[in-house]
């Protein structure tokens, strides 16, 4: 029944078409899919805190990935012999290297905090506009406190 009705309707519209005056120039081009915005328009764009937490999670992940060979080198030497173990310890006690370790561990703490927030959100929490903002600020606060404590531990 419904098919027949739709057929009738479509026939009616087809019959009506020739009576309509065709538009000479279309006013607006119909957009059929997602379009990109200009990259420069992002400069003045105020990103929501959730977006900032999300992109920093991604950036910290890439930084941690880059550190893997260095960590494996340290792991290798720390277990090879008594001598190489102390070489690693001496390298780590260098002032500049201490900062690098602090930076690496900070990225790790941040990636874990934002990741745990992500897992909690997967369970269906913090999904409203307000609660997700609160969760993002909490994530920043907890990570900042842990990174500060890490600094106390290292220095």
């Amino acid at each position, binding site marked *: 029944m419904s098919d027949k009705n739709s057929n009738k309707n479509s026939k009616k519209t087809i019959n009506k078409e020739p009576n309509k005056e065709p538009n000479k120039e279309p006013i607006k081009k119909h957009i059929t899919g997602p379009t990109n915005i200009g990259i420069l328009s992002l400069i003045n764009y105020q990103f929501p805190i959730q977006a900032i937490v999300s992109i920093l999670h*991604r950036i910290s*992940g890439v930084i941690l990935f880059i550190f893997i060979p260095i960590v494996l080198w340290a792991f290798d030497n720390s277990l090879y012999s008594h001598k190489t173990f*102390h070489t690693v310890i001496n390298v780590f006690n260098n002032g500049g290297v201490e900062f690098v370790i602090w930076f690496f561990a900070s990225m790790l703490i941040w990636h874990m905090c934002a990741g745990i927030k992500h*897992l909690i959100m997967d369970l269906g929490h913090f999904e409203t506009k307000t609660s997700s903002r609160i969760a993002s600020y909490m994530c920043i606060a907890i990570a900042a406190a842990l990174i500060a404590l890490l600094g106390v531990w290292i220095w």
Partner: protein
Amino acid sequence: MVKSISSLTNSGVHDWLWQRLSAIVVAAYTLFIFLFLLINTLGSANNLSYATWHGLFGMLWMKIATVIFMVALIVHIWIGIWTVLTDYVHCAFIRNTLLFLFNIGYLIYLIWTISILWR
């Protein structure tokens, strides 16, 4: 359904699940190492000794845990790097070349880890 040959499981839902399962394994192991270092560097034992560190990784359960951690880490990185590269590298040739090179890297990391543990 859209399938991708270069992603870990060829399925978005499975990638999503493995990303989270591997994250839990990686986080648990990292927290353990962190607590181990914290306990052994704070208080009376001011510096971690080679004997303590070597002793920890001399135990079979720790070796197995480390290999499980490394496999979970590689799973996590594989999915993560795949997601990042498919978002930003639009040229298929460059993207697939990078993914291929990274995949060889993951294999080297795993072999390296096993060779460190069973030396």
